[in-house]
């Protein structure tokens, strides 16, 4: 600490206007005095001098001059260390991670700038934050430009130097970026850089995966896969495969090829067709050559949101009835449905009264073609009153079950030849239905009844439209298929008021999940009474559309019919906490149960989180310790059907896609901002900024008390008066 300059000022209780006014008056007085003394010769200079002195003393009495002395502290320079907080720095490097080396370097900088005030922050996608431990990371990004911009927006002391610790492969500025913007953001402060690695690891990697446009169900989607090879690894050709991850079954190969690399980089374009709409998790993988040190970036797991231009629906009916008519007419009226229908119009026993096929407008039921070649092209299949054995569907039921488990939708609509009556009991298809089937001699019940809503039925958005029209009322049904108990994870929305399965009411309408697909069992053939009947007239015939809009919408995962919407906050990286945001429909209340399951054939114990009756509003659910792969998050709210959300989790992900270091970029940043680029071993060569001085004490003292100025002014004024009289000016 030392004495700084002493300065002079007028009393601080006078405003600037008063000071300038007084000074102006003084100057004016002196000018008038000078003019006056010009008329006399006698003692002219004494009169003028005494007048000027008297005016000055009067001004001093008014303005009261003071002495201001300042004392200043000398403090160490402020240095901000910005450590790259990207997940990329978790890449192993010489037995430890790059992040560990970066943290060690940050500590080393603290030692180098011993007398400096060093702040150590890490930067990711936005504002820099305090440096965390070695195992964590801030973001997949490492955006230095955003970090400097955020620091500038804070009202704080400008640092005298930045020190960036990184491997150089920043998200921004990129290698090709103009660094002028960065220089502007530095505000004249030099940016020193510390490169934590200067040797590329031997690594073959998927650098990027680009999709040409949006993914649309059943439409080929072109994926461009960029590959790279570094660290001296020899890669001339790299096999590439693309699989779709599915629930409860092995991943399905969508496309494969061999990429040719030229100068350690190359790309391959492969076409994939995703048949199911919704979120689909795809794995892109390469077979890396021996010596690859980073196998984690040999595959990418990517969630695609697959849309559909229209729902492609297969409607197969065993015989034409009013129920078939109503469903067909409703489906045909919906422009979003691409309907393919096959109705059995005659059986072999029917007598058409002609032997000439040309007189009949009938075509053979192409059951083999439909359920082998074309089945994957449909989003959903409606089986209505169709005997599986009589119409040769039985042999295709295993394929139909696999179709559902791989993401297809299935609705079985009641009738005498549906469910057990259609000889589906004990078949492969039964396992994907939401109810068990009973092999009894009585496949259906002839007693008329009105289905009852269950609690789930009242809560389910799928039936909201129907309930808005009719409340709990439903038309009387002319009998029902005998259905067994609901399967695990199935929900019964309507039940029989009298028929029992054991001690519980028999299901009439049930929804269920089967693998990646969904299925619906509707054990009545009278829903057409919601379209045309005295009951239907009360709702102007809109009840049928309301019911089927809900059923088909739920089957196709239309968000309108889900109890909640689930989203991933940020990205999911292995080992990092993953946050899911659950937004419930306003009417959805009750306990929330989130069940997390892995996609794939290997069954892993699901992670279950229960949140008892949470308050309304978006709900954040944090999951930890997720491994790389595809996941299904099923959120069940109260008694409503669960909502499914698929997402991908990666180890490294995009951040690890390019393991090369980039010290050249750090050199450029340092050079353009006037800093110095060093390696970890060269920390001591970083220039130490000059100490900063900070004002610490300010003292104000009057030169003379005001009364002394006044007395002196009075004495001199008196002398001035005597001189004026003696010179003849009075």
């Amino acid at each position: 600490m030392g004495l700084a300059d002493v300065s002079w000022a007028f009393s601080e209780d006078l405003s600037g206007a008063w000071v300038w006014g007084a000074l102006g008056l003084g100057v004016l007085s002196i000018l008038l005095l000078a003019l006056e003394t010009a008329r006399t010769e006698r003692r002219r200079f004494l009169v003028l001098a005494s007048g000027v002195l008297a005016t000055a003393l009067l001004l001093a009495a008014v303005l009261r001059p003071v002495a201001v002395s300042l004392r200043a502290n000398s403090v160490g320079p402020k240095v901000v260390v910005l450590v790259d907080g990207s997940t990329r720095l978790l890449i192993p490097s010489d037995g430890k991670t790059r992040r560990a080396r970066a943290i060690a370097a940050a500590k080393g900088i603290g030692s180098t700038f011993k007398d400096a005030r060093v702040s150590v922050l890490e930067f990711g996608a936005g504002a820099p934050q305090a440096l965390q431990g070695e195992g964590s990371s801030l973001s997949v990004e490492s955006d230095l430009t955003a970090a400097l911009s955020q620091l500038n927006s804070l009202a704080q002391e400008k640092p005298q130097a930045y020190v960036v610790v990184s491997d150089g492969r920043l998200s921004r500025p990129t290698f090709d970026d103009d660094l002028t913007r960065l220089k502007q953001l530095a505000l004249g402060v030099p940016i020193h850089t510390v490169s934590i690695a200067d040797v590329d690891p031997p690594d073959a990697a998927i650098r990027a995966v680009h999709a040409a446009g949006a993914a649309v169900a059943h439409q080929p989607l072109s994926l461009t896969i960029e590959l790279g090879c570094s660290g001296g690894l020899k890669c001339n050709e790299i096999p590439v495969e693309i699989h779709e991850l599915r629930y409860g079954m092995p991943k399905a190969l969508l496309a494969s090829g061999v990429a040719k690399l030229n100068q350690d980089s190359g790309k391959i374009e492969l076409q994939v067709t995703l048949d199911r709409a919704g979120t689909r998790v795809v794995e892109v993988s390469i077979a890396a050559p021996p010596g690859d040190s980073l196998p984690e970036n040999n595959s990418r797991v990517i969630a695609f949101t697959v849309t559909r231009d229209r729902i492609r629906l297969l409607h197969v009916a065993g015989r034409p009835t009013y129920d078939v008519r109503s469903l067909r007419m409703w489906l045909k009226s919906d422009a979003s449905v691409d309907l393919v229908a096959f109705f059995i119009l005659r059986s072999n026993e029917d007598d058409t009264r002609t032997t000439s096929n040309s007189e009949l407008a009938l075509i053979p039921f192409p059951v083999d073609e439909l359920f082998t070649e074309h089945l994957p092209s449909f989003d959903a299949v409606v089986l209505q009153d169709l005997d599986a054995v009589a119409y040769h569907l039985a042999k295709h039921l295993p394929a139909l079950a696999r179709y559902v488990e791989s993401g297809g939708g299935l609705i079985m609509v009641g009738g005498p030849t549906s469910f057990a009556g259609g000889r589906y009991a004990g078949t492969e298809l039964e396992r994907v239905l939401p109810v068990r089937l009973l092999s009894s001699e009585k496949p259906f019940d002839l007693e008329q009844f009105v289905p009852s809503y269950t609690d789930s039925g009242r809560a389910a958005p799928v039936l909201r439209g129907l309930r808005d029209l009719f409340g709990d009322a439903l038309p009387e049904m002319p009998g029902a298929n005998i259905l067994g108990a609901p399967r695990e994870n199935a929900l019964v929305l309507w039940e029989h008021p009298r028929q029992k399965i054991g001690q519980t009411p028999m299901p009439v309408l049930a929804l269920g999940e089967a693998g990646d697909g969904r299925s619906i069992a509707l054990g009545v053939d009278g829903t057409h009474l919601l379209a045309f009947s005295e009951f239907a007239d009360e709702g102007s015939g809109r009840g049928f559309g309301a019911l089927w809009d809900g059923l088909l919408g739920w089957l196709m995962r239309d968000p309108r019919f889900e109890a909640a919407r689930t989203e991933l906050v940020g990205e999911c990286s292995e080992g990092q906490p993953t946050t899911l945001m659950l937004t419930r429909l306003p009417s959805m209340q009750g306990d929330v149960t989130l069940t997390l399951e892995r996609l794939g054939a290997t069954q892993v114990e699901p992670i279950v989180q229960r949140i008892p009756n949470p308050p309304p509003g978006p709900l954040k659910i944090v999951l930890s310790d997720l491994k790389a792969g595809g996941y299904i998050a099923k959120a069940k709210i109260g008694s409503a059907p669960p909502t499914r959300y698929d997402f991908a989790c990666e180890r490294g992900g995009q951040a690890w896609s390019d393991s090369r270091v980039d010290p050249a970029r750090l050199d450029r940043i340092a050079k353009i901002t006037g800093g110095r680029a060093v390696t970890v071993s060269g920390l001591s060569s970083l220039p130490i900024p000059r100490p900063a001085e900070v004002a610490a004490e300010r003292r104000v003292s009057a030169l003379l008390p005001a009364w002394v100025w006044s007395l002196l002014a009075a004495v001199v004024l008196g002398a001035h008066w005597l001189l004026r009289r003696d010179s003849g000016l009075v």
Partner: protein
Amino acid sequence: MRCITRQSFLIGVAASVAAPRALAFGQAGAFHPRMLLTGAATWAGSRLRAPERWGWELVRRTSAPARAVCQTVRASDNRLLAEPFCVWAGEGEISPLTRRELRVLGRFIQLGGVMVVDDFEPRVGTFGRAARRELARVLPETLPVRLDPSHVLFKTFYMIERPVGRVLGVDHVDAIVRGNNAQVLFLAHDLLGALAQSEISEWVFETESPDPMFREQAARLAVNIGMYLLCSDYKDDQVHAPYLMRRRAAR
């Protein structure tokens, strides 16, 4: 399948006889040509059993179920709205529809119901004209149009060249079409006359031509109407187009 259909048909007979509104499982959606009555009209006479014969023809030729005992329904009765099909048949003049009849018939059409108007005396045409006049009061903004020979009605089950009933009549069918659906079919061929049988299963009326195929053509029209009701425009689906074009070419 055949057994089930027959069984259902028989169950339908029993159910229909026992309690007109108590239907067996699988029968509520079965084809049911209900006879529409207006004013003081009753359903009686030589064509009494023709609707049952219509259902029987449908059941024996196709996989569609049909109700074995057919009912009548009054245009003023809300029960007209219970099912989407009715047949308005008769001869001679019709008394103007009452306000209530107009309202219920309007609701029937609005809900998507299908009606066949069958004139027993098409050469005179009094009933047909009166029915058109009264239906114009029900649907004042929708006029009947002539169905194109390529309309799906003529290929729902049989490939039909032209409509035929007890009489040859006109070579076309007029219809009130709403949206894509022909909801009111005007037949000028006495279709029920061709289907009418006595209690001992003898044809009540001779057809205009003694050729057995003449009555067969009428039965085929009846079947096609039934299938049009139950399947709507199913045979217009693109998947059927190449087959049907080949068959038309082969004829």
